[in-house]
């Protein structure tokens, strides 16, 4: 199959790259190797939460923080993509979210500080409006509301943790649990099941009533696991919050992320219905190179390999999440150029024993040129018309520094612009 520019990937970097191409009037083909990382990791777009992995002091102004980071670390992917790419890409995404019917809040100027499901404060830049009332810079007391039988969100844990780092007296953070009609404890159910039920108005009204009947002081805000509707953005949230009678905010839960699912489903649908073709279920697993250019990539399609011949390629792969990179005992290998991206004496060198410490595997990826082309050991581009975006770029830990979203935007945007010029 021939294409103008092929984008491989399914996460935010791939979507931003594809949207950039579409807005520029170019013909993008989006190749989807499998599920999107948005289902796991995205509820918010984090641009820069912590300036490095050692500090616990969150970044207040992400744009200024990134500018400083670029100055201090000229090899950092943010420096390679450039501050302009972050600004333009963020503007493009913000506008796209609006066009696709989302109501989001935030800007590059200032981070919000939002409680996580375990009650830790997390800096985020762009967030769904349904999360915004959780901002810890506001002072209203918080009541975490969980559901009996749903253990992916434990309100008591969140309250205990948050009251250590935030709030003044004992009353400022509390936990309650209500039971959900039809969800008997002991039965197996997930956030997806609950989210689907919340789309039903009668169910919503009943749950809102149960929360209202819980003794609560005036002026509290209610933090709930993000289950307020499976596919809707604000409709379910708004009507539910009105019935509860207090400000309500959603908190991202363990995977699968309902917030990520809402985001990905609707952006994918929007871009597809506006004319971008998607190739589903076809992992790309080889590239054919000649004269320093990538001539084609091969997809694993039903029955046979499907070649994609494009003028340029954006590899918006997502490291460990989408299975793009393959780990052997000693080596991590990329699927296109069969380059060894990392060597480890033993596989355990890739991980730190503490789950909450920076993980070496997180920064494994392609080394890239200042135009985001993958480079070999000699520092020269492996192919002049291939550009890497997103988590598969080496040299940063997107999770630890809370910068996954911003880097996806900046590198997705920049890679698309480079692909257009190639």
């Amino acid at each position: 199959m021939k294409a103008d520019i092929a984008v491989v990937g399914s996460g935010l970097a791939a979507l931003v790259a594809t949207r950039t191409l579409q807005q520029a009037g170019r013909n993008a083909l989006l190749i989807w190797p499998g599920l999107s990382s948005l289902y796991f990791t995205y509820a918010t777009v984090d641009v820069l939460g912590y300036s490095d992995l050692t500090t616990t002091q969150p970044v207040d102004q992400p744009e200024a923080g990134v500018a400083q980071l670029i100055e201090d670390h000229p090899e950092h992917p943010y420096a390679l993509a450039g501050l302009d790419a972050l600004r333009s890409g963020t503007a493009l995404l913000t506008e796209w979210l609006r066009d696709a019917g989302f109501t989001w809040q935030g800007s590059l100027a200032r981070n919000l500080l939002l409680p996580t499901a375990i009650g830790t404060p997390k800096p985020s830049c762009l967030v769904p409006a349904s999360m915004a009332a959780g901002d810890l810079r506001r002072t209203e007391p918080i009541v975490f509301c969980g559901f009996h039988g749903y253990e992916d969100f434990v309100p008591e844990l969140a309250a205990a943790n948050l009251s250590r780092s935030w709030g003044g007296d004992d009353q400022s953070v509390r936990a309650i649990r209500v039971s959900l009609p039809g969800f008997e404890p002991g039965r197996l159910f997930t956030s997806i099941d609950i989210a689907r039920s919340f789309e039903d108005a009668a169910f919503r009204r009943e749950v809102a009533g149960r929360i209202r009947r819980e003794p609560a002081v005036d002026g509290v805000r209610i933090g709930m696991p993000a289950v307020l509707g499976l596919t809707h953005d604000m409709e379910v949230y708004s009507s539910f919050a009105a019935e509860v009678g207090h400000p309500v905010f959603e908190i991202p839960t363990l995977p699968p992320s309902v917030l990520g699912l809402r985001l990905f489903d609707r952006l994918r649908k929007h871009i597809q219905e506006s004319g971008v073709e998607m190739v589903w279920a076809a992992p790309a697993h080889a590239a054919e190179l000649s004269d320093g250019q990538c001539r084609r990539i091969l997809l694993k399609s039903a029955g046979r390999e499907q070649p994609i011949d494009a003028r340029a390629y954006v590899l918006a792969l997502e490291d460990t999440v989408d299975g793009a990179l393959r780990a052997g005992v000693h080596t991590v290998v990329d699927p296109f150029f069969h380059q060894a991206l990392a060597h480890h004496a033993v596989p355990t060198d890739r991980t730190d024993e503490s789950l909450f410490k920076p993980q070496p595997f997180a920064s494994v990826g392609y080394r890239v040129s200042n135009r985001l082309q993958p480079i070999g050991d000699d520092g020269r581009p492996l192919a002049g018309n291939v550009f890497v975006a997103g988590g598969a770029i080496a040299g940063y830990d997107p999770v630890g520094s809370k910068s996954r979203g911003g880097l996806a935007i900046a590198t997705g945007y920049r890679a698309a612009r480079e692909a257009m010029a190639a």
Partner: protein
Amino acid sequence: MITDEIGTLSDTVEEAAPVEACTKCTACNTVCPVARSTDIFRGPKFLGPESERYRSQAEAAVTAGLDLCSGCKLCEVTCPSQVTIQEYIRRAQNKGAEERGRTLRDWVLGHTRLLSRFGSMTAPLANFGNRNPLVRLVMEKVIGIHRKRPLPRYQWLTFERWFKRNRSLPLVGRAREGVSRRTVAYFYGCWVNYNERRLGEMVVHILERNGIDVIVPKQQCCGIPAVVNSNIDLARKYGAENVRRLSGLPANVDIIASSTSCGLMLKHDYSHLLEIPGAEPVGARTYDICEYLWMLYEAGELDIAFQPVETRLLYHAPCHLKSHGMGYPATRLLRLIPGVHLDEVDEGCCGISGTFGVKVEKYDLSMKIGSRLFEAVKAAGTDSVLADCETCRLQVEHGTGAKSAHPVEIVARAYGYR
């Protein structure tokens, strides 16, 4: 995936992922159209890889809930680790059916071809019966086929016989020495043969218009109705018969299917789920009709002297089409035709999944799964809804009252075919 040596990495990429490759990420459950529509279904993750770890050949099959899997394969399309979720579910279902014995309905729906042949031979009577409320009530009580589900109309003149009558040699296309550059074998499937002969006529017309010789080898049901109705052995028997016949074709003959799911069986399931020897080379030369026409276009071999077709169309991509991993060739093709205004609707599964939505206890669920699509189709108000899969078309017509067509119908019209 962990391997010992870097040198074996490329091999591991080719293999089907073992059950251990499932990282329990739950992505499959989030996209499963059944799990999204009911809370009585525990989802592909639990019924596929998670249960698989506890299944052994020696023990009795645990099949509770397995019948709610509609077989759309969106779980496999979504799985980032390429776990063959569907195959685990199908095998367990099959084992359960072997142990407890198959129901009358399993047998009836698994033998679609036999049934269709009978329906076609007795077409006026069968069509009358399928629309008669009393007959349908009896069918519901005795076999378990929901009385509200419209059943496809049978045609007395089959595609096979039409082809025999209208082409010079029996079951072999018009040989046009020195003219044709390509020869294709048409796998028309039961649907075209017994229910929608016109679609087959159009496929033949379009291919011949492009100077391609069409031959129609003798063929059996592709086997998918048997696969989804707990009879893998029967499907394997059908598949092996098709593989034997299609393997005998000269090496330069490509195989074309106009049914999404028949094509997927030939391309993929024969060599994977059914493990039919010799199936891989057959799959490697099987093409969906639109995929093939687009390939001709890219090679500069497609006649693009299209007449304008002034129409507003809505394209719905069938779930099994996504499993082909070839994009949406129909949309590319139709956008070459002047006058065609084509929009896409991305509302996921239509809900029917072949014989799933026909069953008495699944009908309501099937309509609920499709409800998002139905609403979108009604809101769009187009001339026709296009889908490559015949049961998607039946479901959209039933759920919306809109007209539907296979994409090649528009191509045929653009070629002046009436």
